[in-house]
């Protein structure tokens, strides 16, 4: 086998702090993401799994360059996002896009959806003005909506349809990398399946690299090649979907899997009920951040931050 093709996107030790260092406030800075290493190949789908406050949305926005990392670098196709010139950055914007969770706040209520889908091609001058309308109608068709929908306003659509519109807007610039931030969690289950199928179809048709952010392991299982499990801003476990979700090694992944309710009685394993809530990201525990809720924690867990070895960050493993 020849050398693997260079990945499209590489994150090297990215960390993000939200400092509350205002003129009159001196709150403790919140460390939302700590030292994450990640790479994403062309056409690959990686699932980013974690509970609220795990930093998964922050990480997604750093990978898109919408939020600068406090430490570490993000490379997109060999360009360091932080050091890109304004012209480079503009060009990169076209190549990476985002789909949001909330279908109600992600569309501008005051503009027709056709105008919103046309924004990307207009900003990047991708199509001449005369062909814009045709481009919008083509995109609407690709996400399963009618061309005549272009003249309507967002409130005239259901949640699932809005999510399709959000996807059409993201695809309008022909991106190579798409971050989908919980794109189906706000949708009904019958519609959720439609949107997942659409994403899977578009991904293979356009060769998209997809970062799929979700808290729902079952959804990740059906769509992703690899999965990264975050807890309090740190990677707990990562690896191929089949390996991580079928034979989880990190106690957090195990607890997460066992906590998910299941339709099939046979899959309801003995539940590992985690005690308490995740700690606040402004005061994370010393050592392993999961140790305060970990059923198998030992004294050493408070001492050292476990390194990610072979896809697992746990002193108990290996």
């Amino acid at each position, binding site marked *: 086998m020849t050398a693997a093709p260079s990945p499209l996107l590489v994150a090297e030790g990215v960390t993000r702090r939200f400092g509350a260092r205002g003129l009159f406030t001196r709150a403790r800075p919140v460390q939302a993401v700590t030292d994450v290493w990640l790479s994403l190949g062309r056409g690959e789908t990686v699932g980013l799994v974690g509970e609220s406050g795990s930093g998964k949305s922050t990480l997604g926005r750093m990978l898109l360059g919408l939020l600068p990392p406090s430490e570490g670098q993000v490379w997109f196709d060999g360009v360091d996002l932080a050091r890109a010139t304004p012209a480079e950055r503009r060009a990169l914007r076209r190549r990476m896009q985002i789909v949001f969770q909330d279908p109600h706040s992600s569309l501008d209520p005051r503009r027709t959806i056709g105008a919103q889908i046309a924004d990307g091609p207009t900003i990047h001058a991708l199509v001449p003005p005369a062909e814009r309308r045709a481009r919008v109608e083509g995109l609407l068709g690709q996400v399963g909506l009618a061309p005549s929908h272009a003249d309507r306003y967002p409130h005239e659509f259901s949640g699932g349809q809005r999510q399709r519109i959000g996807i059409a807007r993201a695809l309008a610039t022909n991106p190579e990398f798409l971050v989908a931030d919980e794109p189906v969690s706000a949708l*009904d289950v019958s519609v959720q399946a439609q949107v997942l199928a659409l994403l899977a179809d578009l991904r293979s048709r356009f060769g998209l690299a997809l970062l799929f952010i979700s808290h729902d392991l079952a959804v990740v299982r059906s769509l992703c090649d690899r999965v990264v499990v975050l807890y309090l801003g740190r990677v707990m476990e990562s690896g191929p979907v089949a390996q991580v979700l079928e034979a989880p090694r990190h106690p957090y992944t195990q607890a997460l899997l066992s906590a998910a309710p299941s339709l099939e009685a046979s899959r309801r394993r003995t539940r590992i009920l985690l005690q308490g809530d995740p700690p606040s990201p402004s005061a994370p525990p010393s050592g392993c951040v999961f140790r305060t809720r970990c059923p198998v924690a030992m004294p050493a867990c408070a001492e050292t931050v476990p390194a990610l070895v072979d896809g697992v960050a746990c002193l108990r493993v290996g």
Partner: protein
Amino acid sequence: MRLRPAPVAAVAAIAVLAVAVPILPLDNPTRMEIAHRFAAPSAAHWLGQDEYGRDVLTRLLWGARVSLSVAAASAGIACVLGILLGLVGGFLRGIVEVLTVRSMDVVLCFPPLLLALLVVTLLGPGAGTLIPVLAVLYLPGFVRVVYAGVLTVRSQDYVEAVRALGAGPVRIMGRTILPNIAGPVLVQFSLAAASAVVLESGLSFLGLGVVPPAPSWGLMIGAARATMTQSPLLLLWPCAALTLTILAMNALCDALRDAVDPHGVPARRRGAVRLPALLPGLVPTRGPALEVRNLTVAIDTPAGVIHPVRDVSLAVGAGETLAIVGESGSGKSLTGLAVLGLLPPIARVVQGAAWVEGQEVLRLPEPARRKLRGGAIAMIFQDPLSSLNPVHRIGDQIHEALLAHARRGGERLRQRVVALLTRVGIPDPAARARAYPHELSGGMRQRAMIAMAIANDPRVLIADEPTTALDVTIQAQVLTLLGDLRRERGMGVVFITHSLPVVAEIADRVAVMYAGEIVEQGPAATVFAKPLHPYTSALLASAPHEDGSLPDGIPGIVPLPHELPPGCAFAPRCRHRIPDCDAQRPALVETGEGHTSRCLRWREFA
């Protein structure tokens, strides 16, 4: 964009009059006829003549020209500058914000009338001085309104989306943010313009505005006040003109605000309708904790009456969990709210009955119902942050719930609060009782909500999506807690959810709702193993598969309540549709022991 015509016509008429004054066949507004001072209205002088014998109508129209141009110019200047400063300050933040928004706060420190007096005294009176003075006075208002709007809008996902598309700041501010704050800015404009008309009149009245003998409404009011006893009508005309103009301007701005909002205006509610009395002899069947029979809820909309809940019958026994499962718009939440008598004001129960431990509740007068709520029947909601009162400590809120149903308060109730918090698994309960809702995590808030709900030992607990907003590890904790409480207290639980896996985990029986109707009801195990309605099977197939294959969605969308198909509501999306399905609405038929289905072809699935 549809604009209501009446306010537009009114303001247009006033503006046209003011503009056309010089070409109208009118007198010179300053020509005096001392001989005819205080003359009553006549054919030549429709509104009479003033203290110098000048024609009142002429002066009124010329005065409108002055008053309106001062008002429009000053409000317009303030509006444009305010939008610029507020947008830039709110969007760019940092030092720009200090320069634009904070500097405006300084202007707010001066009493407006004093500032106006000061400037006019320094620069001399006249319309030319008034415009910049009034503009400066109204500027901070506009900056504030725009700034607050920008702060709200800029955090919306759609702003992030255009940023991700590569839009620059000017495009984001102009194309995306500005249209979304247009409503409040227009309202502010109407307030400022109306207030400028009044302030101009006031300053002219004081002799600091328009200089006599030029006509102005303020001067006219001032002059008429002096001669009020001789000719009260002279006071009426300018005051009426002032009032009508301001009303018209406000109406126009409201119309504009509605017109730029693509959502349209919400409907208003009509009078309450009484539920017909229960037929004699109608009693619950088995004496369950809660029984609902033939419940129908109606909502009046501009498009006519819709029935988001139709003919719903269900029962839950003591210690039993019934799950109502359905997608958004299925009517599952309204069913729960109707039983508690907590329907939103636009909705009402038009048919059916509900018994809690044998007592009919839908026909109870409100005071008796209030006793019931939080007593025999309690409810928990999806979002505990919005259903707990943010300004009271959670211990006090639970205490309140206890007090509403106890004879007297005292130390024993306080102890019960702590005992309840302990029971729902809140660590350090005595200290947490003193916490405010925002100081607790989502899971802890939901536990506090549950503590409040079970405070008076309810017989029935209605839980509306109680774990939907929670993380999966916290959801597991709350589901376990609810299961334990149900067992140890023998409560009947109605669990409203959209999540089939959650139903499979906790429910004894399940009722599947679609477009306002129950389409299938039965023991959870049977329904999940062998669904007898195509919607239930389709719903099960659209849950993510455990084997990793992509789930099947259901094509199409739920029909809107006012566009229901004539036959089976699910027929347009159903794979098993036959012509009979569209002919008539299928009835709910008993298919087995405690199992019902609303499908004509259920036998083929059995």
